[in-house]
């Protein structure tokens, strides 16, 4: 039996078990426990998407849970809204709150979301306690009507069990769609290298804030279900401690696999209930929380230190259900040769110069990295920048591609000023680049890496991706990406994880990825360093081919031989200043250049 088949079987079995569970446990285990596992799962699925796929942690999911709960409670109880109308309001309200908080915060790199959400959790708690005419204050609100659709009133454990778990399965489906989509690849790219993702035009903050909004929506949904289930709401279940509980569930289950969220919620809840049953019997005290905190704390520490991916991968391994490396694009990729090669950037009626730098200056504290640098690269040229170590070559690339902001001066792309744009915008305008140390997206396959390069040329939206509507575009993207892999000669390794490639292939993969954005201008940062001589020959051919298909190339290179072979013109930098510019042969004989490379004496 193939693994895929086994996985299908296992999934069917799980659904079947879920369906008969209420009858199986009747009279032995309270179904209420499973309703809560479902509710917690919903929130944790959102949190895992956020942590595992957007690389951000929230310590405020309990606040969105609470927000959903209070919106549902207040609109139905105080405003007389029908509960089935209150449900989308609760979901939307929580999503909106998350988006409004997240969108600005994600502009800051790093883990500021932790702080923001933590603050939100406290603020939310204080508001709920104090806006008493709406929320009922600390005592809460009683008598919230149950969910109902027409004459069908949903009450009791069994009804909420089925309802909640339907939502859980739906959330897993949505999450899976998202992870396997254009958006999911973009998120994986951001997680692996935010810089490289920006270099192919991905706006990390845009996607992070949407994932965060989705996680808010799921928490809000759980909150609304909670109030209709218990017909009661009070502030304490949504306090900061519960946010930590949720994080424990998420990490225990495993943040990189969505079903892990359900596993985490189940493990924590069942373990807690087991402790509640066992501990008093052992110690005769009736206090379970005392041991619970220690057990969960230690468990969390052990899991994070020894198995950061949580228990889910181990569970799959134990069941021999580890999925093989996805080869879902192989079929599409086989079309590579059959598709017409994507047309080169059309020779538009454009200004003669593709790239122009004007008086560019970059200062890092006391260090002047680039000093009053101006040059111009006409369309169709191969332009090389050389210079000794520390001459500021890579800094120039970072300034052109928008990773750094110049202290003074400006960069123009086809006459348009780009030096005040964020890196992902510059990339979208057609500046592709590679990095001195290749930054590939290690968790994605070679083919997927190039598909990420196509990000700005594909359109599946976040919402469409959630419902799995991008499949057709994905197939086309795979075929196009395969075309670029063919150009660099990596097509036979399309399904290999990029992290497993040898060094030389990483450089080629970066080139293919950069080509996929259909650049007007391609910046190659030391394309030949670390390559064997055979690979080097390939690279030279490749650079020429790229130029011949209409892309202007700027390269930084130490290998003077390669520069002489390929470049139309050469710029020599030293200490951030231009010391020579011109045809390779002229520059090679320039005494200032020789001095810079070999020292003053050799020159004289």
């Amino acid at each position, binding site marked *: 039996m193939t693994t895929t088949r086994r996985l299908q079987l296992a999934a069917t079995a799980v659904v079947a078990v879920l369906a008969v569970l209420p009858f199986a446990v009747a009279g032995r285990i309270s179904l209420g426990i499973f309703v809560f596992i479902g509710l917690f799962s919903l929130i944790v699925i959102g949190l895992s998407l956020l942590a595992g796929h957007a690389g951000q942690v929230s310590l405020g999911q309990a606040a969105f849970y609470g927000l959903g709960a209070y919106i549902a409670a207040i609109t139905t109880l105080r405003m007389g809204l029908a509960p089935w109308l209150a449900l989308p309001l609760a979901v939307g309200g929580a999503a909106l709150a998350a988006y409004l908080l997240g969108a600005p915060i994600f502009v800051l790199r790093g883990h500021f979301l932790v702080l923001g959400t933590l603050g939100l959790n406290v603020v939310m708690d204080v508001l709920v306690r104090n806006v008493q005419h709406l929320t009922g204050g600390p005592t809460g609100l009683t008598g919230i009507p149950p969910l109902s659709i027409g004459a069908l009133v949903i009450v009791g454990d069994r009804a909420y069990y089925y309802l909640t778990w339907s939502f859980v399965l739906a959330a897993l489906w949505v999450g899976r769609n998202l992870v396997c989509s254009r958006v999911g690849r973009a998120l994986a790219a951001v997680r692996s290298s935010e810089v490289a993702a920006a270099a192919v035009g991905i706006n990390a903050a845009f996607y992070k804030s949407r994932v965060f909004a989705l996680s808010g929506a799921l928490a809000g949904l759980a909150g609304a279900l909670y109030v209709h289930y218990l017909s009661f709401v009070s502030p304490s279940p949504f306090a900061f401690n519960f946010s930590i509980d949720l994080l424990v569930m998420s990490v225990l289950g495993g943040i990189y696999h969505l079903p892990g969220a359900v596993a985490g919620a189940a493990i924590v809840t069942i373990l807690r209930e087991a402790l509640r049953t066992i501990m008093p019997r052992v110690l005769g005290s009736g206090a379970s929380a*005392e041991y619970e905190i220690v057990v969960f704390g230690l468990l969390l520490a052990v899991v994070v*230190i020894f198995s950061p991916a949580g228990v889910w991968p181990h569970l799959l391994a134990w069941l021999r259900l580890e999925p093989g490396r996805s080869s879902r694009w192989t079929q599409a990729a086989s079309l590579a040769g059959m598709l017409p090669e994507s047309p080169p950037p059309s020779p538009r009626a454009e200004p003669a110069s593709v790239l122009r730098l004007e008086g560019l200056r970059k200062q890092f504290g006391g260090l002047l990295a680039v000093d009053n640098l101006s040059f111009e690269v006409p369309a169709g040229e191969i332009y090389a920048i050389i210079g000794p170590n520390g001459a500021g070559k890579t800094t120039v690339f970072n300034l052109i591609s928008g990773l750094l902001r110049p202290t003074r001066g400006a960069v123009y792309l086809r006459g348009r000023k780009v030096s005040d744009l964020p890196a992902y915008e510059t990339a979208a305008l057609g500046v592709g680049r590679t990095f001195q140390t290749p930054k590939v997206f290690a968790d994605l396959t070679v083919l997927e890496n190039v598909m990420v390069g196509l990000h700005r040329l594909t359109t599946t939206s976040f919402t469409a991706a959630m419902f799995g509507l991008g499949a057709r575009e994905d197939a086309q993207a795979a075929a196009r990406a395969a075309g670029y892999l063919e150009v660099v000669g990596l097509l036979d390794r399309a399904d290999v994880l990029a992290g497993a490639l040898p060094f030389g292939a990483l450089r080629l993969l970066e080139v293919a990825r950069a080509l996929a954005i259909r650049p007007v201008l391609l910046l190659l940062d030391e394309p030949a360093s670390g390559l064997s001589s055979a690979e080097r020959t390939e690279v030279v051919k490749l650079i020429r081919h790229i130029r011949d298909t209409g892309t202007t190339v700027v390269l930084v290179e130490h290998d003077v031989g390669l520069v002489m072979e390929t470049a139309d013109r050469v710029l020599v930098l030293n200490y951030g200043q231009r010391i020579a510019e011109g045809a390779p042969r002229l520059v090679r004989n320039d005494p200032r250049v020789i001095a810079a490379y070999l020292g003053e004496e050799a020159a004289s």
Partner: protein
Amino acid sequence: MTLTQQIAQFLASGIINGTIYALLGLGLVAIHSATRVVNVAQGEFAALGALLASTLVTRGMPLSLAAAVAVGVAAAVGGGVYRTAIRPARDAGPLTLLIITIALHLSLKGLLLLVWGTDPHSLRPFTAGPPLRIAAAVVTRQSLWVIAVTTVVLVVLYVFFTRTILGKSLRACAVNPTAARLMGIRVERMSALAWMIAGALGGLAGVLIAPLTLATYDMGLILGLKGFVGAVIAGMASYPWTVAACILFGVVESLGAGLISSNYRDGIAFGVLIAALLWRALAALRGGLIISEEAAQE
């Protein structure tokens, strides 16, 4: 009480609370600059110090000795925590390390609960006597102890970081661990030292406030969070700015609660935090700085 008296009183309690937050904030900065870890469990060091000191004093130990023991144990726990939980995962991402400290927070809190139970414990003030009147405000003697001891700690830290080889090595590790290693500094040891310092500072904070408030196993989190807010406002790097930010935060919190509404006290405090974050984000947007300088070098 007149409004002037009230404002004086708000300022006084704000400064005293801010000073406590500062002790926790300093510990957070010490840990963050040496090991790049945001320690969620920082407040637990304070709870440990407070509980231990009160128990030792109840058992008849002189207060000064009890305080010293409590601070020493907290420092040892800090070092031990680094050795057992942080060092094995030191190469993991910031996300993992953050979660580890959350785990530490839970475990330490649970252990405190097992040892001390849920009952609050009290500690007598360092010097007995009625509160003093300073300007228009009434201040307890213990509050003066808090401020005096914190000042001494700051001076000691300053001398340590600027005048001793050990302190300078620690700073070097914070600035550039790789270079520090090349210079022959044992980075591991420095990291452990930073955690011990953080433990000691936390323990000290606990000993100092136990007479003002009470010692409970779960007192740590909120203290740690407020120290955290101050440290973040100060950029998680500078010791003097952290102290300033924490005191400012204490004063804003106290004035906000006093003049606007005490019901919203924590809401105001953490609202300020969110506002500060959003302000930084908007400033970054306006500056167009999407990828930081540090990231471009990555």
